[in-house]
């Protein structure tokens, strides 16, 4: 069982992801450069955060058209587990693996803080082991999730909303929404449930020393999907 941690020029959460997977989750992992054209030998894909290709044009736009992402699209279509955090989420949306897009935060500021998430569905391995209320760090300037109203309706009907920003007691409110995302959405699933994208960083919440361990419940999804 082995997870590919993708690396683009400008990725900066790749080492965190590798460390969290191998040291804290006991999952084998290896870096895969964006020019690679094969994911042979891998059972999962982690698309890490950062500023791939300098965020030129749009966040994730250039990365989503890279060699390795074309493989990730095929890998996901075959049911392989794919997780994108932060810039990784933006890349998955740009690649068309997830609905919607991420825009500049409503309050025009980069936000770096811990937030609370409510786990909204249990239908995917990505969310089946997550805590009801997840405490997890965010660090982004462009995390305002937007999607067309009719798509949002369809996503709700199909339980594709994975996580919403909430207050400590689990209520969605304007004060707990750090970036102006529609309906407080922090993470979404594809229809099949094997692809998850979220703005928060599960790889930065895998040991008490880092401030919390709630990220482990999400990263456990790699094992759960791969075991299927």
């Amino acid at each position, binding site marked *: 069982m082995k997870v590919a941690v993708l690396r683009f020029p400008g990725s900066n959460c790749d080492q965190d992801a590798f460390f969290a997977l191998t040291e804290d989750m006991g999952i084998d992992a290896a870096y895969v450069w964006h020019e690679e054209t094969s994911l042979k030998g891998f059972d999962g894909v982690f698309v890490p955060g950062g500023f791939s290709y300098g965020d030129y*044009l*749009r966040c994730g*736009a250039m990365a989503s*058209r890279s060699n390795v992402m074309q493989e990730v699209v095929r890998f996901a279509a075959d049911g392989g587990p794919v997780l994108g955090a932060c810039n990784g989420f933006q890349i998955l*949306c*740009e690649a068309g693996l997830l*609905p*919607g*897009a991420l*825009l*500049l*935060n*409503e*309050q*025009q500021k980069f936000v770096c803080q811990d937030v609370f998430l409510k786990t909204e569905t249990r239908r995917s391995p990505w969310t089946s082991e997550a805590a009801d209320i997840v405490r997890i760090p965010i660090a982004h300037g462009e995390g*305002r999730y*937007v*999607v*067309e109203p009719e798509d949002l309706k369809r996503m709700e009907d199909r339980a594709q909303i994975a996580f919403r920003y909430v207050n400590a007691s689990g209520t969605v409110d304007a004060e707990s929404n750090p970036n*102006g995302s529609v309906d407080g959405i922090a993470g979404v699933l594809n229809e099949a449930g094997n692809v998850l994208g979220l703005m928060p960083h599960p790889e930065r919440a895998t040991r008490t020393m880092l401030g919390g361990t709630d990220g482990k419940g999400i990263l456990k999804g790699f094992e759960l999907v791969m075991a299927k």
Partner: protein
Amino acid sequence: MARISQTIDVARAQILVTLKPSLLDSAGRTVASSLQNLGFTEVGEVRVGKLIEIELAEFSEARVKEMCEKLLANPVIERFEIKEIV
């Protein structure tokens, strides 16, 4: 990579990419507030877009449209207009 020489034969396309009107433009809002601070009290809403210029061996609107759809604009959040520059 093909290089196009700066001769009179070069065609150019200009693409204007803007955020859909239904979406809040955070950058535009910041620019509006900055202009108002500078004393331009007549300023209302500001929207910021992108202008992309492309040199081409020959201009084909269909091909440029394909470029927009495949990379230059994201249909989920943006609209684009294509112009040939002569």
